[in-house]
């Protein structure tokens, strides 16, 4: 297990969102959290990244409670990309990606040749070299999302957390992000946990799905096993048919809202 959550209770001020959630993520896995709005997906992701402190329970990275790790040490092992991040209007792609090296720099901040190589590699991996001097704010949606992923890559993490990385992108840019995730997983062994709204994409690009409802795990496992009409009815209140493509990847076709849902 690379990352593990045990008995997480998460709340925003007094409002409890997640009540007793446990999950375990193996090394080199790609996992998608799915579930309706308000089911606690993003909240769980924030807790895994320590941006939200749990009211109860704990998150363990390589068996160490992440609350006991220094922020810098955690940031060298785990990167999170929140939903819809914003950059100052003049920040260039290069500057943004360099920020990904900050957990590796000493306090006086002098970068080494290795840091420059990592930045160059992250830009190459996300195909942004020719845009390095453009302000992030002037990029198209797909390019911008790749720039934020390059920032996370520059941290050289073992675990990458992505909160709705494809929302607001057109289909081809959505697939571009998903293919990038798959490539990084395969070539580097990067462990990825992402929140996705598109269930078909989640099924196609993940080893495992974790379905959440009201802050609890209601189903988890390989997409082909857990993606069933019953699950979609129970979790989303949607009647759907499940089809399988030649690779055995399931996909759902919505038929309508479930009666009484």
């Amino acid at each position, binding site marked *: 297990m690379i990352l593990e959550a045990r008995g997480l209770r998460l709340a925003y001020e007094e409002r409890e969102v997640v009540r007793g959630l446990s999950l375990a993520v193996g090394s080199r896995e790609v996992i998608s959290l799915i579930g309706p709005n308000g089911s606690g997906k993003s909240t769980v992701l924030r807790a895994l990244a320590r941006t939200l402190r749990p009211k109860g329970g704990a998150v363990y990275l390589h068996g160490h409670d992440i609350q006991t790790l220094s922020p810098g040490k955690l940031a060298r092992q785990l990167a999170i990309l929140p939903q819809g991040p914003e950059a100052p209007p003049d920040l260039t792609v290069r500057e943004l990606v360099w920020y990904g090296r900050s957990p590796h*720099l000493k306090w006086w901040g002098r970068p080494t040749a290795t840091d420059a190589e990592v930045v160059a590699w992250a830009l190459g991996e996300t195909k942004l070299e020719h845009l390095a001097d453009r302000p992030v704010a002037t990029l198209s949606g797909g390019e911008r999302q790749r720039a934020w992923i390059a920032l996370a890559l520059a941290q050289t*993490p073992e675990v990458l957390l992505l909160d709705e990385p494809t929302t607001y992108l057109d289909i081809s840019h959505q697939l571009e992000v998903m293919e990038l995730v798959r490539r990084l997983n395969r070539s580097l*062994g990067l462990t990825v946990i992402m929140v996705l709204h598109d269930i078909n994409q989640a099924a196609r690009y993940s080893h495992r799905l974790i379905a959440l409802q009201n802050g609890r795990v209601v189903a988890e496992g390989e997409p082909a096993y857990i993606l069933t009409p019953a699950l979609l009815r129970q979790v989303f209140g949607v009647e759907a048919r499940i089809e399988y493509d030649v690779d055995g990847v399931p996909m759902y076709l919505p038929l309508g809202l479930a009666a009484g849902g």
Partner: protein
Amino acid sequence: MTGRLAYAEAIRNGNGNSAGLLLAGRRQRRRQLAVLGVGCLLFLAAFTLGVGLGPVRLGPVTVWEAILGRSAELPRTIVWNIRLPRALIGSLVGAGLAVSGALLQGVMRNPLADPHIIGVSAGAGLGAVTVMTLFPLAPPHWIPAAAFAGALLGAAIVYTLAWRGGIAPMRMILAGVAVSSLFSAGTSALLVTHSDNVQAAMTWLIGGLAGRGWSHWQRLWPYIVTGVAVSLASARKVNLLLLGDDLAAGLGVRVERVRLLLIALAAVMAGAAVSVAGLIGFIGLIVPHLTRLLLGSDYRFLLPTSAVLGGALLIAADTAARIVADPVELPVGILTAAMGAPFFLYLLRRRSTR
């Protein structure tokens, strides 16, 4: 780099052109350094003019000879007893307000943030006016002391009110507006009920450097110098905070701790500045914006450039305030607004039409 994954190999095999990337980055760096350099020259020019101009005019060479103690008796006396401390105080007040404003705009990610918005100015005003009206016979150094205490108290109240398991910048700004209104109401009440002291109090509230000397400098420099130094050391963290709390935390920043430290620094610098010079407006809001328009939002350059430009602008305004309506001295706060606002609007328009 992490040892567990195949990064090293991937990076070796990648065809990323790191040398070219660094080179392109250097061009940007050179431009930022150039702006900082020009800022320093402007500051030196304003400083020299500020010391040189007055009822007795001194040329630039005489000014620096006098500062270094190599001139004749008269210029040396004028410079060392009157003009040098005033210019030095002006530099630090301008730099302190500008850096304070830049920090607040950064940590709150709000372009409207400035030292006034977090209760510093209203607190200082209430503190100073309380001493002037209720304790008119108190020794004169009570006024800056009370102003400083009031400034810190105002900021502390605003911060406490805005705290709910963390600081939401918008909540802090709204709390700041509310607390400032309350403190200003208190100040007005004191002024109305003690009308015999209104003249002195109003002059203090508008802000100015008239009659400020070495004793004020002694009280001012430790706070501003420390504040600016710690701010510069924290510049990289402010850059990360600009990406949002969650990303900054994910990049290893202790968000709440850093924000508290930087807000406290901003309050101390602005508090020290206004306690010595009165409620000088506009510098804390305008100088960081102006600097940002010139060189972008990288705080490693924004903070030092704001400091020198803030100092330059305040000295220039104070010099103008002394000589424009000679022998009457205008309050410098009027001049900072009159000089700063049009230039700011010019930059804003030029920028938006590009």
